[in-house]
Every structure is written in C-alpha cells, then in structure tokens.
C-alpha cells in the first residue's frame, strides 16, 4: 500500500494513501474535534457526510478550510489544526448550531450525554453572537421513541443507521435550507412509518433530538401503590452495560449490584429475563427439532429454515418487509413476553396475587421492547403481560434518583423461581447467542448425547452474516446468523428466492446484538465498549455452573408443575404468538 507523508501541526505523519486527515491526525495524538462524524470500528458503520464542518483544518495552499473527516491526505500536505482562523471558524460553526437549538439543556433528556453540549463546553462557548429564528417542528411520540427535532443538528447519523445499516428507511432528510430536518417521509409520525423501533437512531443521535419514551414515573407510581405487587425482570445485556453509567469500565458485570439496587428501589421480587430465555430455548429448540424431524421424514409442509423470534425490532421488520415469510419464524414469544406470561399466571397463582394486582416491569437494552409489551397479542383482557419496559439508561437514572450508592452495594442473588438461569440464557445478549443456546439444547435432545464442548465457537463472531455447519451426530445442521437489519434483509432475500439451505437462522436487529441495543448506555462511536460488553456476556456464561437451558432446575419444575411439555397445549396458549402483515399499514397523514 502506498504511504503518504504529510505534516500535521508540525508533526511528520506517514499514513496509507486514502487515509483522511482526521485519522492521520489521531494517529499522532492530535484529536481534531468532530460532531457529525461517527465511526464504529470493525463494524462497517461510518457516518461521514462532512456536513457539520466542526472538524475543519487549515491546509497550506488551499483556498478554504478543509473538513478533516472527509479530506484525504496528499503527499507533502501541511495541515494546521489549531490556528486562529481554524479555531474562530470552528467556534462560529458551533455558535451557529446552538443559535438554532433550544436552550433547554437543564431539562433535556440528553443533558450530560449530549455531544453538542460537550463540544460547546470544550470550545469554551459562553455567548451566542447570533440571535434569530429557530427552526421548530411538531413533536412526535411513538410507543418507543420520542422525536424532538427542534434539537436536530442534521448530523445525519440516524439517517445513515436507519437506511444503510438497518435498511428500514423510516428516516431521511426532508425540506431545504434552514428548515431541513431528518424525519419520516411527508413528515409523518414515526408510528405511521416503517420504523421497527430498533432504536439504533437513538443510540447514535448526538443531541436530544431522538430519545426513548421514559417510563420511570409510571413505574415509580406502581412501586408506591400498596395494592400492587411489583416484580422486575432484567435482560442479559443490561448487567454487562449498566456499570458504565456509574463510571465502571465497560464490560464490568454488575449483576449482583443491579439485583441489590432493584431490591432497594422497592421491587417485591427481582427476577431474571435469562430464566425466560431458557424457557424460550425449550420452546424454540423443541419447535426446531419438530420441524427438522418433519423435514427429515420428508413431509412436504415442513417449514424450514426456522427463524428466531426473540428480537422485537426484527419481528417488526419482518412484518413490514417480508409478509410472505411470516410462517417461518418460530412462533415462540420473546423471553420478555414469556416471562410476563408465566409471571402473570404461574407465579401470580403461587403468591396468590390477582393478575391485575401484579405489575411486571422489564429492564431491557432495547427500545423495541417498549413497543412489544404494548402489542395486543400480549394482553389478556387489556392487561399486558409486561406492564412497563425500561431501558438500561432509564434504570441507571432511576437508581441514581433513588439515592442508592450503587458502587458500594453488596452483590445479591435473584429471587426464585423466576430468577434462576443458565449460561445459555445469558448469551442471548450477543449475536449468535440465541442460536448457540438453542443448539446446546437441541443437540442433546436430538442426539441423546452429552455435549463435549459447550461453546460453539463457529457461531460466534462479528461478521454481519455468518453461516456454520454443525454436526448433530451425523446430521449436518446449516445455521445462518445475521445481525443488523441490512444483513437480515440480504439473508431473508436469499430465503425468499430459495437460494439458502439453512435449517435455522438467528436474526438480531442491532449490529452486535442486544449488547448494542438502542436502550444501552451511549457508546458515542466507541466500538471498543461494545466489544467489552460482548466479552462480559461470554464470561458470565463461562462462570455459570449450569450452561444449558434444559438443565435449569426451575425450568424443569415449571414444565412438571404447570406447562406439561415443551410446545404442548399450555405452552402454545401462553408462550407462542402469531405475526401480522404490516406491509399495507394504512397511513394517516397528520396535519398541523
């Protein structure tokens, strides 16, 4: 590869041809500030429209300032990143952005996490020299996401994620000039767009333009209500990321402290979604084996491949984009909903509480879960199986508001019976985890043999689409894995075209899986954080004594005492669901 030498702030740098000034500068420790630019290394996610102009630098011989994020280095280039001309321009750019931004930092959901705020702080901006009209738009609240695009700075990250990474196409820039903004087509509400609520737009928004619907207050009211028994479930990825909100290094597992905190906040029982993940494996694994056996027996209506159905963003995507394939996903509900269904029947009976007096709260890394728990399929006489779904970020704020000294909490254990889980339930948080958990169980159930190596290393990884062949005692099982909805779309396209020979496919909407969900602490473009969360999940699995779902004693007891057998009559009633064609969703255009 051709190397190019240049000078940045009087330092000589040698980089590969095609490198941007920004990357060349970072190589020698010069941190040129950026705003619209965001890159998640090793995940092929990059947003560089070169539009905010915060990263401009002075290049000798060039008429105007150059945006470092999109300008490639040239031999002998002389770059200065902090001359008066540059600093003045940069500061003015940020002042201009702020001049068209609400001054409500004190009450903004993003305060403290806002990249515009931190850049204003970094540049020492104390006064806005430009006063004038601010662009204002209608607020849009959906079941999961709030759009307050008065705060949009047109960085286009959400648009990039929504269109390129997720191929959902719900968001794009509309209008021209001063009133340009990123919005659904015709400035409709998100609810009437093909939005899947994956929340990836929220996870990359640098300001408070895109945030989650906050359920904290409603949950607080339930906790205060003496007539209610309030229980909580926590998803596997939450424990791998929650610590970041309290200043712990990324990848720190805080399972025990999280349980202790929830108990102190007043939840009557602290349970684990991982338990429900094990239950999901029992149902989904059994369904897979059933379909597989039918296929092997030559039944023509055997539906293969089977698709995992744990991820609500993915389910939404399927319902909008692949209505012709609605018959192939597993009918098993997601762990969140299985938990709710069991909690409001089996567990409610056990503690003698009426359904309507039991409040189920979930702590999730996800925004689509907020929508999922509101779906009509998951309600009994209007009462939802899961009442409220909160994100990791909301949980962290809630803990802080409850005056809990999180870092000094003792480690505590989940309650039973819905708190016991296996390593298989834990790895649901990573891409490849669900299918690995399913295979651990399916293998042993199918072959009757014990797994020698529990880890299926060939199912792990970060490639957007992966495939693996597993040997089930002579039977070769073809497994497909996709994460990120663009990859899902490609894989599903092959299935639709009859070009794939997979028996089972795992799909997660977010790149990396739930550890990178839309409800997780903000990564601010640092993919290292995501890698550490992923490692933490695998290490929690490794530390578990029981690592296969079908060996979870409480799961076995649940089947024995209540459900009967996996995929049996009662399971079907409580643990399985149906999918709907949303491709022709009637669209209502709202007029202001």
């Amino acid at each position, binding site marked *: 590869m051709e190397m190019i030498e240049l000078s940045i702030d009087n330092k000589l740098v040698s980089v590969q041809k095609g490198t941007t000034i920004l990357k060349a500068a970072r190589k020698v420790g010069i941190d040129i500030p950026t705003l619209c630019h965001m890159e998640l290394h090793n995940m092929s996610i990059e947003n560089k429209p070169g*539009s905010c*102009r915060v990263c401009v630098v002075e290049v000798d011989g060039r008429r*105007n300032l150059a945006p470092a994020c999109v300008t490639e280095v040239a031999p002998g280039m002389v770059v200065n990143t902090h001359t008066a001309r540059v600093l003045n321009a940069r500061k003015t*750019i940020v002042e201009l952005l702020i*001049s*068209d931004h609400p001054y409500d930092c004190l009450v903004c959901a993003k305060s403290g996490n806002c990249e515009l705020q931190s850049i204003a702080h970094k540049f020492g901006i104390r006064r806005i020299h430009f006063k*004038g009209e601010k662009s204002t738009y209608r607020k849009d609240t959906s079941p999961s996401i709030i759009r307050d695009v008065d705060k949009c700075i047109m960085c286009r990250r959400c648009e990039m994620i929504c269109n390129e990474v997720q191929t959902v196409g719900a968001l794009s820039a509309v209008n*021209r*000039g*001063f009133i340009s903004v990123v919005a659904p087509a015709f400035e409709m509400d998100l609810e009437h767009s093909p939005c899947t609520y994956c929340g990836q737009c929220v996870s990359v928004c640098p300001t408070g333009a895109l945030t989650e619907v906050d359920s904290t207050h409603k949950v607080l009211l339930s906790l205060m209500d003496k007539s209610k028994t309030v229980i909580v479930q926590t998803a596997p990825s939450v424990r791998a990321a929650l610590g970041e909100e309290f200043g712990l290094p990324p990848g720190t597992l805080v399972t025990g402290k999280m349980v202790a905190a929830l108990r102190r906040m007043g939840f009557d029982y602290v349970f684990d979604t991982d338990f429900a993940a094990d239950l999901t494996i029992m149902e989904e694994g059994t369904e897979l084996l059933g379909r597989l056996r039918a296929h092997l027996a030559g039944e023509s209506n055997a539906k293969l491949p089977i698709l995992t159905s744990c991820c609500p963003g993915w389910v939404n995507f399927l319902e909008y984009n692949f209505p012709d394939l609605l018959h192939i996903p597993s009918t098993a509900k997601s762990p969140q909903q299985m938990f709710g269904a069991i909690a409001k029947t089996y567990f409610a009976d056990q503690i003698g509480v009426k359904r309507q007096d039991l409040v189920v709260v979930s702590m999730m890394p996800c925004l689509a879960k907020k929508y999922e728990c509101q779906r009509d399929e998951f309600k009994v006489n209007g009462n939802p199986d899961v009442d409220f779904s909160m994100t990791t970020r909301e949980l962290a704020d809630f803990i802080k508001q409850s005056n809990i000294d999180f870092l000094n909490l003792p480690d505590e254990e989940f309650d039973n019976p819905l708190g016991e889980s296996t390593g298989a339930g834990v790895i649901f948080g990573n891409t490849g985890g669900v299918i690995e958990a399913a295979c651990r169980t399916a293998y042993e159930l199918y072959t009757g043999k014990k797994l020698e190596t529990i880890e299926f290393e060939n199912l792990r990884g970060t490639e957007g689409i992966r495939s693996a062949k597993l040997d089930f005692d002579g039977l070769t099982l073809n497994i497909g894995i996709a994460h990120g909805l663009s990859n899902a779309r490609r894989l599903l396209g092959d299935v639709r075209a009859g070009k794939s020979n997979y028996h089972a496919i795992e799909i997660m909407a977010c790149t990396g899986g739930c550890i990178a969900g839309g409800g997780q602490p903000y990564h601010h473009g640092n993919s290292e954080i995501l890698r550490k969360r992923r490692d933490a999940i695998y290490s929690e699995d490794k530390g578990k004594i029981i690592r296969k779902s079908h060996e979870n004693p409480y799961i076995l007891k649940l089947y024995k005492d209540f459900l009967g057998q996996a995929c049996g009559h009662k399971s079907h009633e409580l643990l399985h669901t149906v999918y709907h064609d949303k491709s022709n969703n009637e669209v209502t255009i709202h007029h202001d």
Partner: protein
Amino acid sequence: MEKQITQQGQLRIALRNCGMLDPENIAESIARDAYQALGKVLKELSPQECINILKQSGLRGRGGAGFPTGLKWEIASKSQSDQKYVVCNADEGDPGAFMDRSILEGDPHSVLEAMAICGYCIGADKGLIYIRAEYPLAIKRLRIAIDQAMEDGLLGKNILGSGFNFEIKLRYGAGAFVCGEETALIHSMEGKRGEPTNKPPFPATSGFMKKPTNVNNVETFANIAPIILKGPDWFSSIGTKNSKGTKVFALAGKINNVGLIEVPMGTSLREIIYEIGGGIKEDKKFKAVQTGGPSGGCLTEKHLDTPIDYENLIEAGSMMGSGGMIVMDENDCMVSVAKFYLDFIVGESCGKCTPCRVGNKRLYEILEKITQGKGVMKDLEKLKNLSYIIKDTALCGLGQTSPNPVLSTLENFYDEYYEHVVEKKCRAGHCKNLFHYVINEELCVGCAACKRCCPVHAITGDKRMPHYIDSNICIRCGECIEKCSFDAISIQLEPKILV
C-alpha cells in the same frame, strides 16, 4: 479570419442558430451544419486528438467556475471503467438567467451533437440531460430533437457508420437550485436527495451510479461543434488571454434592451449596458450590475470599463456564474439587493452543512434588521466576519459563494449600509421602515382620493381640508402617491419617530 468584434459588439457562437431555424425540424438544423462536427470527429479524429483541439481552443466551462473543458474531458477519458456517462447540466436556476433555456429551445441539436462528441472522446455511450421540469418547452423540443436524431441515425447505434453508439435520455430536476452543483445533480439523477458531497472524488472518477461522468453546462456544449469545424485557433483568437471565445449573458433589470446577448470575452460592461443594452431605463443613473447570480457580486461604475472575463470578474469581487446580468439604477437599495439574494439562498440551500444552512439564515436576519432601521454598527462587522467564515467552511460551491452579494455590496456600497445603520436612511427610498409619506398641506385640496384608496385607513382629513397620513398605520404601499392628482404626497427619507 472572423471579424472579432463587430460594430455592435455581439458575436454569436453558442447562439448561432437560435432564432435561425425551426428547432422541431431536424432538416433545418442539418442545413445549418448540425452533426457535421460529429461526423468529422468520428471519421477523422481519435478521441485524444479531439480532446487536444478543445484544450488548444481554451474553452472553459460556461456553467460558472470556468474549468477548462478539454482537461475535464481528458480526465474522464482516462478514468478506467466499463461504463461512463456524459451529463448535460440544464438545471439553470440563477435568478434572471435564461441562456440555457434559449439554447435548448432554439437549437437543441447543438447540445445533442456535442454530447455525442463528448461520449466519443471519453468513451461513454450514454448521455443524460438533467433539465429542470419548469422548462416544459425545452423538454418538448429536446424530446423531438432526440427522436428525430435517432430516426436519422445521428444518435443511437452505429452513428454515421462509425461503429460508435450513443443514446441520450432526459432526467428532470424538481427545481432545487443546488442541483446545478454537479455532485448534487448526480445524486438527484440517481433518485437521491439533491445535495452535494465533498469532492474528491470528482464525477470524472466517480459520478453517476459511481461511474466516471463528465458534466458540462448547456452553453459549454453549444460551443463544441464550431470549435471542431472551424478549428481551435479560430476560437482562441476570440476573447482575452485566459478566457477564450464568447459568453452569453442574460440582460435583465433596469436596462432598456432586456434580452439575451453573446459577446466576445473581454467586452466591457459599458459596451454591454450602454451599446448593446441600450442604456438604463428612463435614463436613470446607473448604480450597479449584479453578475454571477446568487453566488456573484455587484459591479459598479468603477468597473464599467473592465474587460469581462473569468479572472477580472473574480478580481472585482464577483464571478462569471452562468451569465445573468441584473442592472440596477439609483432607485435600487443595495442592502435590499443583498437581502434579496440571501433570501434566495436561505430557501435554496440544501441544508446539509451548518454554515450554509444556519449561517446564511443569520446573515439574512442581520440584513433584515438593518433594512428595518434596527441595525447597529457592530452588525456590519458581524456581517463581514460571518460571511468570511461561511466562505471558508461551506461544503459546496453554492455555500462557499453565497455571501458574495453581501461582501461585494459591503465593499462597494458601504456608505449605503452606513446610512441605514447610523442615519436610519435608505437613499433609494426602498426600505419601508426608513421613509414615510407626507402630505404637503399647501398642495392638498382635500379631494379624499388618497383616503379612499388607502387599504389600511391610515389617511384622515375633512373634506376640502388638507389630509394627514398616520405613519404608524401606513404600510408604504404607495397607492396614495399614484392616486393623488396634485402631487401633494411625497416620500420623506428621514424616518419618523414612530409612536
């Protein structure tokens, strides 16, 4: 050799056939040498030889920036690809510019022929014309011309037995000014949002559908065939040292002969305005001429004898642009002129980069403040500083030049800005907050004609008694002045202290 400058100063190369032939009948074009240059190129010249002719001719892009056309073609010809494209930029959007429309409506074959020549030179067999949908007649005539040329074998497969294939399709723009910028234009043709991206990569290496693409303006293409037929030396004998050939200008504004003219590069503004343009309307005093559209600037009396070419216009704080020339007289307020262009830019910015999206809006607001008589001296400094920062940081050519109208009026008409800010006076009587109407009591006969026509009932007075205008209510529509038969109402430039 051609006589360089005729008595009247106009020499028509790009407009050679406009008004001479029926654009809907290819036979008339063929009778006037259409496709002869294409035939010659295909039969006698290699692509590089043809490019060399263009390079020798000194032809530069007529879309505004003035990039050497031959060089542009050469870069595209050297890009390696299985598919390349020739694009004609017919997204003419400058206020007051209509030369592209006239060429397409009057002589469509000149553009089609040149696109085919370009295709041969760069190795493209597909051409696209990006034309704004607001030009229905040009679109109709282009369609007819393409059909007729296809039928005659002058476009399509195996043109004139040469084995060269070239087809041309139309793409319609939806009226966004920024789509005249070539990267935005390409995105728009691809069905994406029409907004520019950083260059490089230039379209010559990665353009339409990521394939090498050569984009030229209509007028540039219209110059190609004569250069091929008459030779590069003929062309380079016309014009100035670095700007060869002629330029089409659309004369508009306060000038007697509003219209389309084509003059050799190097012609002075004075010739254009007073000789060809017939002088200023109603013999008023010339104040300025705005060239280069919203990206350009204002030239004043001191520039009247400057020979017009690419370099001199930039030197004078304006630019060639596409060739709009809007003439202003003593009744035009230069602060308002700057405000007019900023208003245009604020609406037409694509909204992608911060300086253009927000910066221009803030410039506009400061100008508005000044025209309302609310400006302070610091605003002038702010205008200048912000303008320079926008120029320094905006993403595309549109944003980088958008403050030019402000900077050039600040430079050339600082005293007018000063009067607005300090004396609260608009000498042109244009800024409504800075003047008011008064009725001369001695001339007023109390006929009440003004009172009856006033749309906001600002005029009071008893019959046959002098009337009175309440400036607080008056909206300065000027209706009363029109109606008064006794010349009793006049403009008073000093602002009245409003109660």
